[in-house]
């Protein structure tokens, strides 16, 4: 104890502050991996493939093919965000208020932590092995005389990809909404009961409105999460499902029909959409913090 105290006295710093050193890694990191690439992206998107400045790349964004890719990306992101969000919320609610045993809670939290990061090639492979045309579950269904692929279902179309995305979407919802659910004060429920509210009325008039900014914010987060995903879709469909990210990949590094300038412009469009979502997310998050603090 004595030695500890004396070191701290000797270690007294001169008034000059070195605190800024602490954020140096952050500044370096953000300029290397965020700001830098964004600027390069902007510059490239304004350059013609033959050299020289142009707005032509952006004019090509209204090409039906490009719009369709954006549309598909937005649609799949909205569907997986909303469905994953609602499902994840209900699951988190069941864990906290549904009286599930405590074991379930830690089990699900751990699972969510892992699953929300499980994406890309391994995820696609896992699904192909289970729900693919010759996957285990498909085979199991077949054993009972049900041919999954007889219906419209396929792992390699819109709904197939939706199911696969769900695997990391709903765990992310569970992870981010759990603290918000835990932030609901017991006294709010008691105060509303005391004023004559039923459990349903409490959820309808107090709990859900209080949680709404968190729920919407997280759904936007899920939207961004799906919107930026590339590897999973590529590994699963080999590029047959034309998402915006896959289009960018094809334009920038594909073998045929390459058009780098367009690729960069499409990417800039995505940055814009992502930026809007992050802005909206921040606004909602701020409100949520004020209420649930």
């Amino acid at each position, binding site marked *: 104890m004595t030695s500890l105290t004396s070191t701290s006295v000797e270690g007294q710093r001169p008034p000059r502050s070195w605190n800024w050193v602490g954020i140096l890694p952050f500044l370096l990191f953000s300029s290397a991996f965020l700001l830098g690439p964004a600027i390069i992206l902007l510059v490239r998107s304004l350059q013609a493939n033959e050299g020289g400045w142009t707005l032509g790349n952006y004019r090509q964004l209204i090409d039906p093919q490009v719009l369709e890719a954006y549309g598909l990306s937005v649609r799949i992101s909205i569907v997986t965000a909303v469905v994953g969000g609602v499902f994840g919320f209900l699951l988190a609610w069941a864990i906290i208020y549904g009286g599930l045993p405590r074991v379930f809670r830690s089990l699900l939290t751990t699972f969510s932590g892992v699953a929300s990061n499980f994406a890309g090639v391994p995820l696609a492979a896992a699904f192909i092995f289970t729900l693919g045309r010759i996957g285990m579950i498909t085979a199991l269904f077949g054993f009972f005389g049900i041919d999954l692929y007889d219906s419209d279902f396929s792992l390699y179309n819109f709904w197939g990809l939706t199911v696969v995305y769900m695997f990391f979407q709903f765990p992310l919802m569970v992870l981010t909404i759990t603290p918000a659910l835990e932030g609901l004060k017991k006294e709010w429920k008691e105060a509303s009961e*005391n*004023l004559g509210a039923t459990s349903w009325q409490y959820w309808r008039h107090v709990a859900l409105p209080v949680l709404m900014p968190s729920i919407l914010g997280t759904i936007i987060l899920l939207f961004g999460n799906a919107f930026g995903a590339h590897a999973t879709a590529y590994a699963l469909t080999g590029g047959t499902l034309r998402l915006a990210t896959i289009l960018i990949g094809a334009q920038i590094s594909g073998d045929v029909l390459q058009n780098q300038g367009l690729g960069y412009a499409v990417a800039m469009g995505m940055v814009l959409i992502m930026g809007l979502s992050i802005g909206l997310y921040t606004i909602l998050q701020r409100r949520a913090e004020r209420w649930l603090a």
Partner: protein
Amino acid sequence: MAFLVLDRVRKEFGGSTAVEDFNLAVEAGEFVSFLGPSGCGKTTTLRMIAGFEKPSVGRISIGGRDITNARPNERNVGMVFQSYALFPNMTVGQNVGFGLKLKKVGREETQSRVNELLELIHMPDKGDSYPHELSGGQQQRVALARALAIRPQVLLLDEPLSALDAKIRDELRIEIRRIQRTLDITTIYVTHDQEEAMALSDRVVVMSRGVMEQVGPPFQIYNYPETRFVASFVGKLNQIPGVVIDSKTVQCGDERLQTTTPIEESPGTAVNVMVRPEELDIGAGEENQLVGVVESVNFLGAIVRVRIARGEQMITADLFNERLLELPEVEEAVTISFPAHACWVMKAN
């Protein structure tokens, strides 16, 4: 029959008893405080009246109706929480009107009732503010208005002022009593602050470890405590050890003390003579006298607190301050005196 009745109420959590054999009859319009140290079961008792806890044994009734098993939302009681517990997503007006909305009261009637209550809590122009825009004291006023809006039969407050700073606390304390008198509403007030309990209540219930120690008006509780716990928990108290001589006299060291309260213990029993600091005077007196040496003199404004050493023992005397008061000097030998009616005797533990 009294308005709010708790009849042999008992509450157990797991194996341990939080409240034991609680019997209380509160008259309509009465203001009763539950006073006691932390963990003595005040909140638990209040929550049983509100319906958030079910008594393990016993009955509770309001206005002749047995509510022991009624759900919280089927009772007509208003509750104010220590943490205010305002709904953050609603304005002040919406918070106050929430109970009426649930009761399907019409829009206009709700509005006029809300305005009436905002007037009552002196916040007529805050109806559109959100809770996070208000100070703690303002939030608690709104919480009070919200609880009162539904015209509850009983108002319950659980340490409503303990999260506020001293000045606001004093102000709001007066406000609560004023509003309670205006509406003539039966009120139960939980606190561990004896001054608060004394200042507000018609009657105080002193509790310790789940048991009611004494019930009575503040004057009674303070001046005629029935148990050792009440005597030492409420107010400051000098306890002077001695041995019983007869039904009026106790030998304390070299001195003999007289009391007019008959001593029940038999001669030879070890007892304590109890006397409040404000009953003591410095200087010779006609009845009881003790000698000692001044240890410290603290000037506290309205009173001067003098601590006097009598051998090993410390005696505190609170002198009422006045311009002509002659303050004793530290280390001065003094005589302390008090009348025989000021003290009483309790068996030593």
